[in-house]
């Protein structure tokens, strides 16, 4: 996982310095997931979050100029950003932590 974390960090660095948002977004998600994987007991939670966040960020990068109005009168990408990156992650990791708490505390002990 540490090598994966390093790869993710280098992706963020290269993407950020050279101006490649897609590389940077993939690096950000990889680094966050690889770091959390050092202690998260559930590969399912890690994989689900990785796929979800990567998908949302790529969508936002490629559809950011879409002005189609959706719920609440917001442009579709703005709504996807708020729902997908701000609200939905509560269902992945914070609730996932409660659901896998026994496994985590057991492994820790």
């Amino acid at each position: 996982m540490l090598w994966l974390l390093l790869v993710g960090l280098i992706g963020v660095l290269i993407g950020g310095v050279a101006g490649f948002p897609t590389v940077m977004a993939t690096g950000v998600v990889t680094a966050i997931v690889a770091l959390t994987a050092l202690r998260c007991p559930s590969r399912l939670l890690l994989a689900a979050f990785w796929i979800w966040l990567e998908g949302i960020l790529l969508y936002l990068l490629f559809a950011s100029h879409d002005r189609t109005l959706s719920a609440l009168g917001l442009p579709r990408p703005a709504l996807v950003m708020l729902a997908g990156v701000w609200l939905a992650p509560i269902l992945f990791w914070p609730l996932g932590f409660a659901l896998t708490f026994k496994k985590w505390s057991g492994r820790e002990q």
Partner: protein
Amino acid sequence: MIPGTILAYLVLLSVIGVWTARRSRASTDFYLAGRQLGLFTTVLATMASIMSGFVFVGGPGLFYSVGLGSFWIVISASFTGAMMCWLLARPLHAMAAQAGCLTIPDVIVARYGCRFSSGFAAVGILLGVVGYLATQLLALGLILAAVLNTSIWLGILAGALVLAFYTTAGGMVAAVYTDVVQGGVMLVSTSVIFGYALSAAGGSSGISAAILREAPDLLSPWGLVGPIACLGWFFLFAVGSLGQPHVVHKMMMVRDLRLLKHFPWILAVCMTICSLVWLGVGSSAKSLVLRGAMPLLAHPDEAITSFLHAFAPTWLSALAYAGIVSAIMSTADSFATIGAAALARDLPRAFGRQSEPTVTKSRVFSVVVFALALMFALSVKGLVAYAGILGFGIFAAALTPLLSVGLNWPGATAWSARASLVVGTGTAVAGEILARRGLYPLQLPPACLALLLSFIAFLGIGLVAPKPTEPQE
């Protein structure tokens, strides 16, 4: 009514300070609130420490000036609590209980056996505390100046006096108990302000229509700053939160780790509610200005005060100002205590003095920290939000790799820690200086670059030259 409410609120906080002074008899009380926090106290104290004037004053201001892209700063709040529990709760709690660690530099010296790293971390913490505390004092000055109809400098002085009084009296016990009150006020006030701001500006559809008509790029997910800066903020605040000493320190104060089972999702819900003020007031103020219903702001940080002044009834303004003052003070009090710890015990220990400072000595150093922050606040002339990023960036770059990876990876060595601290802190400070002089050439935020280089130095040295040392839990 508004000045009366705020003054009564400040008096209440001072009374809590006097009450808690009696409960701060030992260093464990002054720095770790006696290690007796329950679930809801921990949630509210953590939320109140994270959600500062940066979120309440700088946030709406940033939305006003750069649009939805600014929200990447706070958007990761929904999942960072879970990362904090998974990666930090167990080792930090164990080190406080078993190794007698009271501060983050204590944890570093216990884990890496390196006084240089501990001392350097204490210096980084002190720099970050002074920078961030100055930000809080500036925000407090802006708010109190608007409420009490006085100058911003008098506002800063008045706020600093009350903060210094209760923090010096009660240390972390006062900080935590006031945080609980302040956290409750913040949750109520943000919910009400958000609803009122939306309704005053014609609902989300009305706001959206006005912004899309006049400045559509503000509602792009990347706002006016572009994806590189936004992704940089996202990474910095998602991962860098794990190096914020005033936040992760709370993990050392929990009574029992089993209480943390529901901590991440309750924290996420509370933080989500609080960050509504960023979206609601920022977007409403922008749409009202674009429609000509509100005068053009002289400064983006005036978004919330101008909105309240122009549209809110008196009772709502009183509630809102109480919420804002709560947010600012609840972060500042934790900073003052960890800054005092850095001066009173962490730095002397780095030079070999092992004696535990008395509570009185810790109180004196709390006052010194406030004086340093006050001097810094009086010399800063930028946006409140950007000054906040400087403090956050120093903490993130200096401490995140050492804590998040180092406490979970036996291969991390003292050399990894030294390299990470020097590279991270140096890059954060140099990058911010260059940025303020207009010489920083990248879109990637300087603090994000510092965090990345700090991580890479830490991992690179640990992976290439592994010298296993067991984490001391």
